[in-house]
């Protein structure tokens, strides 16, 4: 009946690669923080990065992390022109951008 795999598992797996040395509870807490940070993108790009049908903006689920980091930094610097993304990207620091990209790269398209 469930349409998607349990939501916390994939981001958790992604964070475990980064933070494998942290104790169990902290890993869960940091996975939650990463998931919640990435959820600030979902208003326009879809829950867990899955765009609505016929979307005018790209879905982010499964986007390679390196590509997404590059694009967000290009929005931030102005190298990539945009209507709104340049204004939003400037609200996030490099560490947050890495976290967001890591989360979406780990999501099923």
């Amino acid at each position, binding site marked *: 009946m469930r349409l998607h795999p349990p939501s916390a*598992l994939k981001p958790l797996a992604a964070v475990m690669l980064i933070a494998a040395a942290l104790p169990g509870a902290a890993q869960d807490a940091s996975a939650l923080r990463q*998931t919640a940070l990435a959820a*600030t993108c979902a*208003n326009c790009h*879809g829950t867990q990065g899955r765009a609505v049908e016929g979307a*005018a*903006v790209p879905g982010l689920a499964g986007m390679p992390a390196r590509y997404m980091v590059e694009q967000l930094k290009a929005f931030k610097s102005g190298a990539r022109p945009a209507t709104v993304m340049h204004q*939003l990207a*400037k*609200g996030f620091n490099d560490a947050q951008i890495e976290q967001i990209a890591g989360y979406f790269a780990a999501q099923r398209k």
Partner: protein
Amino acid sequence: MMQRRTLLQAAGSLGLWSLAGCAIDSMGTAGARAPAKARVLVVGGGYGGATAAKYVRLFSDQKIDVTLVEPDAAFVSCPISNLVLGGSKSLADITTPYTALARKHGVRVVRDTVASIDPAKKVAVLASGPTIAYDKLILSPGIDLMWDTITGLRAAQAEGRILQAWKAGPETLALRRQLEAMPDGGVYAITIPVAPYRCPPGPYERACQVASYFKATKPRSKVLILDANPDVTSKGPLFKKVWAEQYPGMVEYRGQHNAFAVDARTNTVRFEIQDDIKADVLNVLPAMRAGAIAVQTGLANANARWCNVHFLSFESTAAKDIHVLGDSVQSAPAMPKSGHMANNHGKAAAAAIVAELSGWEINPAPMLTNTCYSFTDARNVIHVASVHEYVAAERTFKAVAGSGGVSPGPTEQEGQYAWNWARTIWADTLL
């Protein structure tokens, strides 16, 4: 009959929860409850509450039980509802049912209202009678319109003469019908209360939408914006340019017009300082405050209108384990009362609640975004966007320096993004 059915539906949808007995059950086991059995009750299924309900389920990997109490069968969006007035969208276009929250996310949706909340016992009593106990209550009741701040408005609204249509739904259509019935050469006037109110750019977008309709069908008509504020409160230079260039001679803006009375018989609005104004269609927006259930529960501790919260978790400063979201919140600096912001409140509160119920530290650095699109006609759009970070030293959210901004001017490309925003945020909130 309806109440009895609602009660039965509520009992059915609550499954194993004993409705009458759960208050005692909760009190008896409080503190000993394992996080996996935690119960979150969400009151109000708007952008804040519905999002929080869905995201508590997502963030907890479906481990936390979530019940949503909402009186309506479907959600009608306030954002985009101005396009129903303009004629380019229908009410069906802006309506999304609540069914997916139950089917896809396992939220127990109870069609009812909450009559009272006991913060000490941690129970809510439904209008139909049953009691629901909670470990965490998320209160997202939206706004109440303060009818009695404008003499005569309550009766004029009840008679259907002078409408607000600020809560989208049947009144949106009723106002559209008044506009359709107005002869060419008539005057539509909208009054705006002193900020803060729900959706800062909304009244100005509405003026554009009504003007767009008039321009196409009743070009000799006028749109009067009568604003209690000294100047346009959002996207000011952009709106003024649109009015001057797209609707010259049709839209007129007047600041410092604080309405205090209406006369429905003559369709006249009276102002504190300025002269009375008579219009063919009067659209009066009174001052607003947190939804009645928040006020009644003693949570509206900011000027008796809005609810102060600890912004790290959105927990009320007046009651433990009650988290208040959306327009009801006493806003942080530069934080608009918008649907997008309420959706972000819902996610931040959901993350904090899941952390707390799991015994984890709450994220010390949550982030919020806001993007607010305004349609200047059926296709062209302008936006304002912002990113907000929690500033621990000041215990509030502040706009990130250097982030955010507005459009250079209306474009059709932004029109496509705006409609995409609407479809996506409806899905993110409800599907």
